[in-house]
């Protein structure tokens, strides 16, 4: 099989080609590794990769297949966000403070993918500790957007999004605390799923904000994303927040999902107000019309507390981060700064080990939790979070899902928002509320602005209804070809 054919196949396509003997896992890994060598220097989307180890795994997979092993995802390479522990591989969270740390165990999602036969080819760049919306805060330097190398790929999972978009592997794992799967997916023209909180185990994922973090997949198509999701979802005794709710994934049926008859889609008025760029508005409304043409009933709905989401999120997430990141003390793992006393060592380790954005958030979190401010900030924000959650509960009484923009604009230029953190935070306006409410959402490519940059359609569903939003996304992708367009770099 020709290399160029392999890159076009996607996760399912490679699985089918392997099953019918049209290619081998070794051929697939060789092709993707070659592509990484060619394209990665332009992107900086990876923090680490090991072609030799992947080739050994590929040969083992081919041998197993010859012996009758028919696991569908056997021998397919993936990229993994550098936030998830893969036994024997480094795991840095894009931070100097984890320099030298090698994962001694597999995260649950990794153990499940390993069981399914997936090969872990590369680790993808991320904003440091997943804190950011541009992948500019990584200690490895910024990742570039394959659609325009002067632009950011979004973040924090910008490495996964850029790499999948450029075809460095057919799918990747990412994580989403305030939009970190959906926003980079939208900026890079790929499909990304943020599952319901509690749907996917966080065991072995470097913690940022534990009540908001959720791991999810990225791929070219809804079907590919659903395939990876089907492997990683489900209850895990290592993570008490995972739910025993039936995962109910029927990705096979997604291939037949041709229309949206009988589906009620809500259009939140607040998502189309001031701040939304005319280009993204137009692309989103065009996508709404596609859904209407597919038979969906479109209704306007209100999410009155939406505008408070950013403030609420940027109180709660840093508060949780300040507690979670207390463990990086120069003792247990990674990097240690100098110091004659224990305190001096702690303070120097954390000063030298953390980048500015992480420090900013730790300080914000420390402040909002400190004596005298806790009630005014943290407890108040927890109550606002409840109101945001209630908004969604109310609209899902009359709607099956919501649709709208993922981001207010398409990808911005590298450095454009780096000096103004609040401006960067405001870009999360359409994504953070989904995390605060603990529900699920999908981003699917829905076209390009006049500059040729992709935009994403946000499909938001109630808790545990991933199958529903994947079905809506699949129907949309059957009617459109935006997800099939490759960036010029590829």
């Amino acid at each position, binding site marked *: 099989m020709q290399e160029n054919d392999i890159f076009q196949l996607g996760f399912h396509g490679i699985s089918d080609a392997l099953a019918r003997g049209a290619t081998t896992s070794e051929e697939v890994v060789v092709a993707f590794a070659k592509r990484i060598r060619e394209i990665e220097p332009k992107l900086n989307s990876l923090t680490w990769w090991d072609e030799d180890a992947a080739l050994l795994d590929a040969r083992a997979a081919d041998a197993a297949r010859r012996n009758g092993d028919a696991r569908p995802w056997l021998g397919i390479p993936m990229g993994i966000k550098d936030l998830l522990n893969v036994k024997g591989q480094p795991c840095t969270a894009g931070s100097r403070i984890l320099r030298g*740390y*090698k994962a*001694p*165990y597999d995260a649950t999602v990794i153990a499940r993918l390993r069981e399914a036969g997936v090969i872990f080819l590369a680790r993808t760049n991320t904003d440091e500790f997943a804190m950011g919306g541009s992948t500019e805060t990584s200690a490895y330097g910024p990742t570039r957007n394959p659609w325009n190398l002067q632009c950011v790929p979004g973040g924090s999972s910008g490495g996964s999004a850029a790499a999948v978009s450029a075809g460095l592997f057919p799918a990747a794992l990412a994580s989403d605390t305030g939009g970190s799967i959906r926003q980079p997916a939208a900026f890079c023209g790929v499909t990304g799923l943020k599952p*319901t*909180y*509690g749907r996917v185990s966080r065991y072995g994922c470097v913690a940022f904000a534990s*009540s908001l973090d959720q791991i999810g997949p990225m791929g070219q198509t809804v079907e590919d994303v659903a395939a990876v999701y089907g492997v990683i979802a489900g209850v895990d*005794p*290592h993570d*008490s*927040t995972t*739910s025993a709710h039936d995962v109910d994934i029927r990705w096979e049926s997604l291939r037949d999902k041709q229309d949206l008859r009988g589906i009620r889609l809500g259009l939140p008025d607040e998502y189309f107000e001031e701040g939304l760029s005319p280009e993204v508005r137009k692309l989103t409304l065009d996508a709404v019309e596609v859904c209407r043409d597919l038979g969906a009933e479109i209704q306007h709905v209100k999410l009155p507390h939406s*505008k*408070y989401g*950013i*403030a*609420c999120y*940027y*109180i709660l997430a840093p508060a949780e981060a300040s507690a979670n990141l*207390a463990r990086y003390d*120069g*003792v*247990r*793992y990674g*990097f*240690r700064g100098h110091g004659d*006393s*224990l*305190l*001096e*060592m*702690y*303070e*120097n380790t*954390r*000063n030298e080990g953390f980048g*500015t954005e992480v*420090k*900013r958030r*730790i*300080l*914000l979190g*420390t*402040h909002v939790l400190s004596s005298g*401010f806790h*009630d*005014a900030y943290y407890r*108040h924000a*927890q*109550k*606002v*979070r*409840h*109101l945001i*959650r209630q908004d969604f509960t109310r609209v899902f009484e009359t709607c099956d899902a919501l649709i709208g923009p993922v981001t207010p604009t398409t990808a911005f230029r590298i450095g454009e928002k780096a000096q103004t953190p*609040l401006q960067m935070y405001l870009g999360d306006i359409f994504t953070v509320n989904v995390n605060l409410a*603990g529900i699920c959402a999908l981003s699917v490519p829905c076209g390009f602005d006049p500059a040729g940059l992709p935009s994403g359609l946000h499909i938001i569903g109630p*808790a*545990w209804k991933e199958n529903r939003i994947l079905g809506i996304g699949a129907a949309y992708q059957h009617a459109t070809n935006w997800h099939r367009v490759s960036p010029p770099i590829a």
Partner: protein
Amino acid sequence: MEFSQDTSRLDVKYIASLARIALSDEEVKLLQPQMQEILSFFEELKQLDIGPEELETTGNDAAVWRPDEKGEELGQEIAMDVAVQNRHEQFVVPKIIE
């Protein structure tokens, strides 16, 4: 609900000491106005008059229970292996007792 603070008096150096981060003077100069701007932005939550009756609970499931049984563990040797410095399966840190 009052945000009982004057953000112009925000003491970033003191907060950093609580967070065990030795910030340089340059970073204090950079972070002070940025944090003030962000904290001022949080004031918009004041517009919401929320009574004490509003719930704070989150999460999609009720409390989770499991039997109090010992599960698998990583083991001390492996856990210590990732430490910055260890000796005899113990962490090595700067001298604590004078």
